[in-house]
């Protein structure tokens, strides 16, 4: 009963904080709401007309939605890179960053689920996928695995920070024996969500571009570069807009993670390129299409040739301590890396899987306005969710939000 009362008061208090703020804050939230509304409008068009409102077709049957889904699973998984040192290795530097990281994971997961739903042809019968009520093709279908691990990860990432914040809210210390096991599970789980998502594609013998053993590991490496990059950028914003203290040391440590992951990612990219282009087979056609275009069809060239230089440049710059320790340079590099991996792991991964088709047909894919509208709307929703979570968490951590027992 007592816990429930505290919870109620926490909800009321957090509602209070998230509705109050500076002018910039209100502008930001208003802007996000507007974008979300536009996204919803686009989605209503898609519901009305069917998926023909998107650029997808029988030949390229997954597009922007699934690309973003794939990328965001990576961002969500990256929260673990901060969880591990803080909770398990008792590294103090990460403590503040970790709450932000987990909030980011929650927002990313919500976006993932939204992208999957947006991609469905029959959202009204999605209950068919609920175990127990519907029919759940487990363990045969990797998609069911993905549903389980994503929802499990969402649960873990909500409950751990919630527990900690709930305790802090009441001015109590969070018990290590409660959250450390949870943190350890989430470490394995994060690797799991990413591998399972990679297996979703890797397991299809029909698509040689995906059906390669390096896909899973490359997913991990790129995720651990892109995710923490985003966290650094977010921390930078939080640092300049709130009183929340984040030390340079913390950011620099995360930058270290980004750098190592980006380097490993680059090595794997070289290995992949070598395999595809040194002794090209019939199966290298998708890679040819992606990097050079096939038979005059080259819609992806501008994308991939933006991504590769950004990726290489950012990785090289980050490798030098002198540049990495300069925060301005670091932020720019993180941004470059983030964009590069978004292209590479999204568009650059999903679309060429379908091109050329099973019988060599090349039909290109370009997203439509509706599709882009929905996508941007979902990103805005993610940012919205994250802002709310972060604002509450920061409020509690700064001691602005505290439970006041009326009887006491």
């Amino acid at each position: 009963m007592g816990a429930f009362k505290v919870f109620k008061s926490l909800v009321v208090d957090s509602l209070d904080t998230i509705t109050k703020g500076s002018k910039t804050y209100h502008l930001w939230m208003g802007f996000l709401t507007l974008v979300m509304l536009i996204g919803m409008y686009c989605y209503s068009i898609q519901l009305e007309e069917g998926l023909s409102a998107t650029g997808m077709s029988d030949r390229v049957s997954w597009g922007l939605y699934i690309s973003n889904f794939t990328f965001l699973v990576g961002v969500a998984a990256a929260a673990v890179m901060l969880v591990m040192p803080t909770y398990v290795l008792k590294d103090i530097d990460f403590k503040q960053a970790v709450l932000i990281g987990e909030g980011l994971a929650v927002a990313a997961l919500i976006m993932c689920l939204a992208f999957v739903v947006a991609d469905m042809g029959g959202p009204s019968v999605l209950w068919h996928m609920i175990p127990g009520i519907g029919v759940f093709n487990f363990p045969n279908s990797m998609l069911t695995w993905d549903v389980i691990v994503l929802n499990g990860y969402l649960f873990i990432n909500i409950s751990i920070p919630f527990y900690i914040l709930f305790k802090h809210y009441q001015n109590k210390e969070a018990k290590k024996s409660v959250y450390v096991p949870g943190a350890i599970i989430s470490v394995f789980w994060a690797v799991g969500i990413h591998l399972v998502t990679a297996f979703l594609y890797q397991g299809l013998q029909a698509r040689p571009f995906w059906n390669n053993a390096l896909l899973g590991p490359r997913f991990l490496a790129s995720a651990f570069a892109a995710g923490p990059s985003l966290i650094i950028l977010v921390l930078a914003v939080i640092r300049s807009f709130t009183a929340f203290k984040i030390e340079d040391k913390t950011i620099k440590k995360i930058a270290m993670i980004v750098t190592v992951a980006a380097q490993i990612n680059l090595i794997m990219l070289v290995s992949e390129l070598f395999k595809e282009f040194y002794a090209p087979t019939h199966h290298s056609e998708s890679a040819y299409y992606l990097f050079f275009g096939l038979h005059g069809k080259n819609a992806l060239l501008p994308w991939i040739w933006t991504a590769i230089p950004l990726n290489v440049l950012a990785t090289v710059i980050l490798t030098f301590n002198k540049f990495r320790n300069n925060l301005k340079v670091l932020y720019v590099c993180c941004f470059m890396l983030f964009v590069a991996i978004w292209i590479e792991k999204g568009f650059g991964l999903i679309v060429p899987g379908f091109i050329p088709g099973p019988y060599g047909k090349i039909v290109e894919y370009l997203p439509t306005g509706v599709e882009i509208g929905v996508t941007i709307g979902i990103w805005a929703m993610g940012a919205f969710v994250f802002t709310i979570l972060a604002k509450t968490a920061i409020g509690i951590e700064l001691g602005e939000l505290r439970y006041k027992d009326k009887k006491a």
Partner: protein
Amino acid sequence: MSDNKKWYSLDLGLNNKKESSGSCGCGKSEGSCSSTPKEQVEEELSPEEFYEAAINASIGEERHRDGFEQVFDVKMDRRSAFKKLTASLLIGAGAVTTSCSVTTGSDTKEKAQIDWEEQFKGNYKLMTDEEKQGTINRLMRSYELRTDKKINMTAENAAEDVLFGYAFNISKCQGYMNCVNACVEENNQDRNSEMQYIRIHEMKDGEGFKFDKADDNYYHEVPAEGHFYMGTQCFHCDNPPCVEVCPVQATWKEEDGLVVIDYDWCVGCRYCMAACPYDGRRFNWSKPEVPEPEVNKNQHYLGNRMRKKGVMEKCTFCVQRTRKGKNPACVEACPTGARIFGNLLDPNSTIRWVLENKKVFRLKEDLGTEPKFWYFMD
């Protein structure tokens, strides 16, 4: 508005009034309404339509969304509904309303009941025979309620000791595409997007099987000089990757080897499409439309019954025909005899003769999908 539409879509009865004006505005021949004067009918909404229009006007588009309704999506813009509504009120449809109210109520209720049960029914694969019969009865009744036309749908299960297989004679095929057209008509495929299960690939003599150089969308006289033809469709793999990946088991392999889809259970994730190495699957990107007179009314639940938007479909070896002992439409339509279909378990079948006496091969055998579709040459 409805005149220039080349497909059939139920227009609330507002525009195709004339056809249904047989006895009464409610469009029902039997029942308790017999008093409606004919002249009025053209102008008014029948009580049933009135009721529908009222629902439409109040909850609008939402109503169209629920699963089953997408099939028979009621095309109707709200403004015209209001116009008709007011008009009919002024003329005094009230009288008609009362005279027909009993029938109407039960019809609309029945429709709603059917929609409800269809939306929340289970997976066909797991249904008992009674449940299968129940759902096809509902679907037939629903079609009748909406179009006044009867269809005949069966839920025939696979027969024992039958395993269907297909063989394609590359030497004989001339690229006439009769099979493609027969397939479209037999299986009620969407006419708007020109969906086709079969693709005929035109290849150059002397270059071998160069699928990537082949043309599967030609519009010239055939057979073209120096070319040969090869057809592909769903191969009904014995180890189908598309079945493995479906998260909800909306697609599966039947006892007689047919790989089928429950269109009402599919959630439209298109994972199966990505998993198929043979380009065998087609997706309904928008609402499929077939002009009502062209609808093939001999249907099977797993075969050519009407689909809705956002679900997967594909060749079923014409389950509605083959389980009745007939050949698939493509086999029957082919003027060259290039297509051979039959029971692989029957040692006297033609298909067995082909497999035993010809040098047959299958596509992408290295993938381990075991297609039940063989190619051979004379």
